[in-house]
């Protein structure tokens, strides 16, 4: 299932980044994943998720939020910059530093 989600996510990102509306407005149903409650506390976490969260948890709270908002919302640097009141260049550096910082923790060489 993970690989399906990864493929779907990248496909969705490509569509969003190109600025193409995927469906007519009236067909965008109300039951969006973005609006759905996060109920992970009621789910059994995998070891991979626990490990990942421990690694992300090593970052400053604002950087944690930056990484998670990027993943869950599919936001670009420009959109994150607007949200955080910074320039895209600053956000780029935050993302770069944050991701490189957690790399050893994730076991990536």
């Amino acid at each position, binding site marked *: 299932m993970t690989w399906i989600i990864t493929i779907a996510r990248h496909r969705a990102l490509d569509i969003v*980044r190109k600025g193409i509306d995927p469906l007519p407005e009236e067909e965008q149903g109300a039951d969006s994943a973005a609006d759905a409650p996060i109920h992970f506390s009621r789910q059994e976490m995998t070891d991979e998720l626990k490990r990942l969260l421990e690694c992300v948890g090593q970052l400053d709270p604002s950087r944690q939020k930056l990484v998670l908002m990027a993943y*869950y919302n599919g*936001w670009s640097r420009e959109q994150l910059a607007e949200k955080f009141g910074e320039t895209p260049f600053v956000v780029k550096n935050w993302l770069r530093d944050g991701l490189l910082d957690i790399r050893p923790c994730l076991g990536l060489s």
Partner: protein
Amino acid sequence: MTIYSDDHIALAAEYALGTLDADERALVETMMIVDTGFLAVVESWDRKLAPLHEMVGSVEPPSDLWEKIKTATGLPEQRVPTVLPESESEKPMSESNETSSEASGEMQSVVAAANEDVAAKPPRQRPSAGYMFGWLMTAIAACLAAIIGLQSYHPTLLPEGLRIKPKIVEVKTPAPTQLIGVMQRGAYEPAFILTVDKQTRGLTVRRVGASPEPGADKSYELWIVSSKLPKPGSLGVIGESDFVTLNSLSKFDTDIVDNATYAVTLEQKGGSPSGAPTVNPLWAGKLFANTQAASAQKP
């Protein structure tokens, strides 16, 4: 084994995270095709970040989605599977069986805050950016899951028809006569601008930011990269003058031309002798319909 710079690793990580713009994504996708080592780096980040999806609640796809899939694939009525694969992440767990680690407990508030922000007000002019992304994720994942169920019946149905987008593009935009693409690295370094006439498939390359002299015994070479091609195809050497007109696109199908990634590499003088790129691209981009040009041509 190739040792990648922090810049390359950060690029791969941001691709997996999803924060790159369209051109940067095209660049990474080109690098993934050319360099299997870099592909492995991207995939490793994809795998490490993917468990985050467990923290998202499942969403029922729209009731008419399955009908659309059937229509798009021409699926016969009697072959419709009635049950889709069940995701383990959707199985609820009792409240008493809480296994969240301390770190993940702290993370919960951060994620919840992020989610509240999405529900409250996405930050861009398009009011439903995060909303639409979530919807897209749901729809596409549902399509993919359905495809798996169908593979044993119609393995040849996997391709094109499953795309969600085409209907609207045709409705909302005037028929473009021209495609344009910017070859760039990042948002601020455009190097070449490509213009393609959709009818003749004539290709014009205008040099903007790239140096006219790439170096002694070196040439810029333009490539067309597509998953529908066995390998990147050379479109010719470019960059020595401000404008270069090429007819090398005419041998490629329109669908490939429209959707391919275009990349520029620095090759030996006169171009790669092997007919395949020898180094990672310096710049890359995709073509977009120039609807303004189409409108302007109308009286």
